[in-house]
């Protein structure tokens, strides 16, 4: 795993651009040293970005991006992939975890991007970069029309602690082995690329 090709593949993986087959090969073949080097790269990259640099997530709807940019510069990554969700019609406002918002059953598609996007207004100001479980509130109205939004900081904290608490209990008391913790860790990283 020292060829340029592997280096490129690692770099693609770091940027979340590697395909599943490539990921499988890398994960299988990487040595522990390479994994640890990789972690350092991640940290270094984060430092370079200074956490202030924002990149629209992969697959993010271009039109949505355009619509959001003027009022939300620097905070785009918050929304992740947002799709119209099949929520009960009676519920007008839905809290979105900072990462993704999918109708159920879209897994297993290996990077599929939802086509329908809820229009959202991003909060105007924020106190800092969102953390694990940070949430934004948007309308999930059936027509996808824009409605109100609230600053997300406090609610993200709140949801964060609930998710951790739930994962902990589920891991300890249900027969799911380590999957609840895996879920928790993955949720955090899904709020990528800020």
């Amino acid at each position: 795993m020292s060829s340029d090709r592997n280096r490129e593949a690692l770099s693609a993986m770091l940027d979340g651009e590697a395909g599943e087959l490539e990921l499988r090969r890398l994960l299988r073949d990487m040595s522990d040293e390479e994994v640890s080097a990789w972690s350092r790269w991640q940290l270094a990259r984060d430092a370079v970005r200074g956490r202030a640099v924002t990149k629209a997530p992969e697959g993010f709807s271009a039109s949505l991006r355009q619509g959001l940019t003027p009022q939300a510069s620097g905070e785009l990554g918050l929304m992740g992939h947002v799709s119209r969700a099949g929520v009960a019609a009676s519920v007008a406002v839905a809290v979105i975890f900072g990462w993704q918002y999918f109708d159920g059953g879209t897994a297993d598609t290996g990077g599929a991007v939802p086509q329908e996007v809820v229009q959202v207004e991003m909060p105007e100001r924020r106190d800092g970069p969102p953390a694990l479980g940070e949430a934004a509130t948007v309308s999930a109205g059936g027509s996808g029309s824009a409605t109100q939004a609230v600053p997300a900081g406090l609610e993200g904290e709140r949801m964060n602690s609930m998710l951790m608490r739930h994962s902990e209990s589920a891991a300890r008391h249900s027969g799911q082995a380590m999957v609840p913790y895996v879920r928790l860790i993955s949720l955090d990283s899904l709020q990528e690329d800020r």
Partner: protein
Amino acid sequence: MLPLRPGIVAAALLAAASVAVAESAQQARSLLEDMVEASRVLEYQGRFLYSQGGRLSTMEISHAVIDGREYERLAHLDGDVSELIRQGRDVVSVDRNRRITRLPPGESLPPLDLAERMQALPGQYNVLIDGDDRVAGRDAVRVRVAPLDEHRYGYRLWLDRESSLLLRSELVNENGQAMERMEFVSLELAPGLSREDFRVSGIPERVVRNVESLEDPGGDAGIEPGWLPEGFRQVARDLRRGGPRGAPVYSQTFSDGLAAFTVFAEPVDESATVDEGISRIGPSVAVSRYLDSDNRSHLLTLVGEIPLSTAERVISALRLLSDEVTEP
């Protein structure tokens, strides 16, 4: 020689088949118990893919029992560094902003043993061995766990023949679609791990936040479910300070042996800005609603991996046992 009567032959065949099915179900259930046990007592390290909501992540898990204490480290490999480290019952999570949160081991209910936890399974799921397969270059046995009602999801599990460890897992909805998938691409048994392997990587930039555990007032405090899906029972409860406002948050976790959800109750004042609503990610759902009692308003939230309609039914039937969740 008497001619065989077709009816008798059919009955005999049916009986034989149902005995075989029952044996397979029993065998499959004990495989599940072995899996949970193996994940706790064995030393292993492996890398796996996790996908849900159309996103793919790569992670590494390390697990060992050292001097009678269980150590586990889960680290995200692609994207940002985030990890979770567990030592015994202490859990430390490091999020993508290098902020560390330490969860207290507080627990007012004794943990159920494995057999107890799996007790409800036969009533709620069909558990069947579904053949052989290969995962991460290892021989695996496939187990299918199909729910008997609409209040829980199904599972497709691949267990390692040698160690019983979970090699691959899919959570499937009522249409048989995988909502979540975890799959090892490499797994090493007994790799020789030490305590050094269970340290937080890099230097955290943020202060450790401790989640403060409050003494459970016990008795009639807390939440009472007015309705629970069949087979779900309370497995954990506690009272902690939660969120940025530091309000006491009461929580109770319910499980049917596989699926789990947790309900939270916290007092809120009139200026609260939290919205009632629903959010989902992959198999997880969160539903919130207000409940007004004589004294004050509470926000109830359910978080778990159950179908939305079931979550809504549970939360709409929740009651507060006392007027108020207060500090003890």
